[in-house]
């Protein structure tokens, strides 16, 4: 797949502070890219450069082959951007705010009349369409921010912390929409702190640290490359008399009463550990509700990055 977004050697300083330091990144057409990193790593700055809100930086950023500074209009015609916090003119109603933004994006009136109610309906905001924007709650405003980014069905959807402030059904809906858009050929770049959600929808992730990409790839690739330790999860229905044997199998931690995690030492196979755990539990008069190997996820990967000092 060709690269839709090309970020090359981007360096951005705010006064003396370097926020992006020779950042280079490519996002392929049609993929969902999760952009993660600790606070202050430069995620929002990157997205703002893409969206044209920040125009003074070193390096080049291209969207669909168009330079975001020199060919601003062409680049922005294909982008739908949702900033971290969305502001609307307070005198507007929901309907009129969306209508004017869609018009500025070049959506014809006939299409606006179809798309706006359809998206409002989907986000359960149709009843609020004639409400003033200033009367909406934070979550509703967040949804409105999402809708405005989707109105012109952009080729590239850039979302800055889109899941923040959304209730679980809305988060699921957003993830569903991201998948739908991906099937329709849209490329999605989004930043998030909710790693489980990134894990759910992202094809690839990029971990940003101190203004540069610490690593990028598919989550599975990264987990393998990083050599994350395997863990066995044991959930006791009845805890054995002496659960101390778990410590002999690896580094055992009781996460909740009766629920243990055993981190296996490098090179240790998981099956013998599971067998031993079952045998010793039964021998100690205990009963097991659930036992199995836990596959490392993005949370584990990110935690390990921090633990090993790759990200701070």
């Amino acid at each position: 797949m060709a690269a839709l977004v090309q970020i090359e050697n981007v360096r951005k300083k705010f006064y003396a502070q370097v926020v992006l330091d020779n950042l280079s990144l490519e996002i392929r057409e049609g993929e969902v890219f999760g952009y993660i990193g600790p606070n202050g790593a430069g995620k929002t700055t990157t997205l703002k450069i893409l969206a044209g809100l920040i125009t003074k930086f070193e390096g080049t950023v291209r969207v669909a082959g168009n330079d975001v500074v020199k060919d601003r209009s062409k680049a922005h015609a294909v982008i739908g951007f949702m900033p971290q916090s969305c502001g609307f003119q307070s005198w507007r109603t929901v309907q009129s705010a969306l209508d004017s933004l869609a018009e500025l994006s070049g959506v014809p009136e006939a299409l606006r009349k179809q798309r706006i109610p359809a998206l409002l309906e989907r986000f359960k905001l149709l009843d609020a369409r004639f409400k003033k924007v200033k009367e909406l709650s934070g979550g509703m405003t967040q949804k409105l921010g999402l809708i405005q980014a989707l109105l012109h069905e952009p080729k590239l959807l850039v979302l800055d912390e889109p899941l923040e402030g959304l209730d679980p059904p809305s988060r699921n809906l957003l993830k569903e929409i991201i998948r739908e858009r991906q099937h329709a050929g849209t490329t999605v770049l989004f930043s998030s702190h909710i790693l489980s959600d990134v894990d759910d929808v992202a094809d690839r992730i990029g971990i940003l640290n101190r203004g540069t990409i610490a690593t990028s790839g598919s989550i599975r690739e990264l987990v393998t490359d990083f050599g994350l330790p395997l863990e066995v999860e044991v959930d006791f229905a009845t805890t054995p008399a002496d659960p101390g044997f778990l410590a002999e199998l690896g580094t055992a931690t009781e996460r909740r009463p009766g629920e243990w995690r055993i981190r296996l030492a490098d090179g240790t196979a998981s099956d013998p550990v599971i067998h031993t755990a079952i045998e010793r539990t039964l021998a100690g008069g205990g009963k097991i509700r659930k036992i199995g190997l836990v596959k490392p996820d993005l949370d584990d990967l990110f935690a390990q990055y921090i633990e090993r000092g790759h990200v701070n």
Partner: protein
Amino acid sequence: MLRDELIGFAKSKVMIVLWVVLPLIAMAGYLLLPKEITEARGLGGLSATAFVGFLMSSVAGTVAALMVAVDLVSERNRKVYELFVIRPMRREVIIWSKFLAVFACVTVACLVSLGLGIAVDAFRGNAPRGDEYYDIGKSLLSLIGVVALSCSVGVVFGVMSRTILVAVILILYVGQNLTIVPMLPVYLGWLPDHFWLVMLITATMTGLLVLAASVMFRRAEL
């Protein structure tokens, strides 16, 4: 964009005050003036038209500058412009629309007030005569010039300032003085005292200031 801005300002409470409440208060104030002041017409008496003219010339410019500057700062701080500038449009359009919308709305307020003044004078049997209409027209044009220049000053300070307080202070202390600049060459004897020349300087200054604000806004990081 301009249509939207016009609708926005027209719907705002400030415009209701400017279009309705202020003219009514002005008229009430005029009607409360002592008769020695209002009825000595032709001998220095004050007509309702003149009274409203004085009143508007003292407040319209400041109101226009404050309106546009406060609106720009507050919308920028609420990140309203982020959703505009990410779209394939020129950033300058936002500034020119804002300027034209406030200018148009405040001009309408001046026209309404002056029209009401003329109506009150006519009702009291003191309708302006032909030559007086010419003077009223010139005063109105001067007033519109001041409003335009004030709006452009408001736009510049609105783009420059990060907080409403700074914008207001700049307008009150610097902006008001800037509106007399077009008349300085005449006062200093550099140029002949000609009404249309002052208007031309006013229009040029206005255009240059809005242009400067547009360039600043185009380069601004939002």
